[in-house]
């Protein structure tokens, strides 16, 4: 039990977290959004999520977008297809090939969208977060991103209905992709 060593352990978490992020980006290679041209990241960030709201009692309630979702509007279908074409034209990596066989759901919360948090969590990073989620959904064998504009990062576990729904969707999709669990 590590509560009494919280500070010491948190210190040890920093390098691991950064190394994990770097390792994941290396695996993505040219498809790592942190290494993509800014205009492509911007376009990816503006791809509309499959849903934007809350999922409770088996149904979605659509809500206004959060400040986390930047830009004046989401991409049109045509613009979305164009950025998808650009992404798919990039040199595949082992990671992207693997990803194309996976069932993936992305739940995007209200990341650090508060005073203090947003002084650190810069607009650029908000865009990267949205772009990364959209990219992961876009190139998955079966993918979707759901945005929860009123749910804080640390409250995501309270979105029980949505988590269960996502896991059921992933399980069903994995069976369809012939990678049953």
């Amino acid at each position: 039990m590590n509560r009494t060593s919280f500070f010491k352990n948190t210190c040890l978490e920093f390098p691991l977290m950064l190394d994990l992020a770097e390792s994941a980006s290396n695996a993505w290679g040219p498809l790592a959004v942190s290494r993509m041209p800014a205009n492509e990241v911007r376009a990816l960030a503006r791809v509309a999520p499959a849903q934007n709201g809350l999922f409770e009692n088996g149904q979605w309630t659509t809500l206004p977008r959060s400040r986390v979702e930047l830009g004046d509007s989401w991409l049109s279908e045509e613009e979305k297809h164009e950025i998808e074409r650009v992404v798919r034209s990039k040199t595949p990596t082992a990671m992207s090939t693997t990803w194309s066989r996976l069932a993936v759901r992305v739940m995007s919360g209200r990341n650090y969208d508060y005073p203090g948090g947003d002084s650190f969590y810069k607009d650029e990073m908000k865009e990267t977060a949205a772009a990364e989620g959209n990219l992961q959904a876009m190139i998955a064998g079966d993918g979707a991103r759901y945005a929860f504009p009123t749910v804080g990062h640390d409250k995501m576990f309270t979105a029980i209905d949505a988590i269960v729904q996502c896991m059921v969707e992933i399980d069903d999709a994995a069976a369809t992709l012939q990678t049953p669990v």
Partner: protein
Amino acid sequence: MMTSQVVSFDRYGVGWSDENDSGASPSVDECVRDAFFCMKCAMPEQDKWLLLGPSMGSIVAQCMIAQQPDKIAGLLNMDGFPAAFESERENFMSGRKMWAMIPMISWTGIVRMMLSIAPLDAFASQSFTASHIKAQVRDMLSAQLTLTDSLTDTLLECCWLGDCR
């Protein structure tokens, strides 16, 4: 009725897992290896997995997928923060030094004094209040400490509330 089995674990050095008394951070490979080891121990017959990666766990999951792609069939990336955090390495390492310093200077009372004057309300939010942070830190150390840096708030959120409960 569909039934599922869930394997949930705290990574080495966090939550209810063994304390990391080595003084060194686990490596990415060790982190990934430990995760697969825990899963294998819990469900030896299971060959394919669905991963639920919250926050920092989403990057752990991506590294697991990269290292053992044949073992994973799906992923729920639950509000994982972006890999762009790699570009903030310097800031985070500075934050790390600050965290290392807090236990060393807490006996002086300086931290308590900072708590009394820090404008923590500025950091209040719907999702993460200053009193929330203070209450939990106080619970752990039985002392009043303060977190005056928004970077620290973010890390606490990522590493503790998200993954380590």
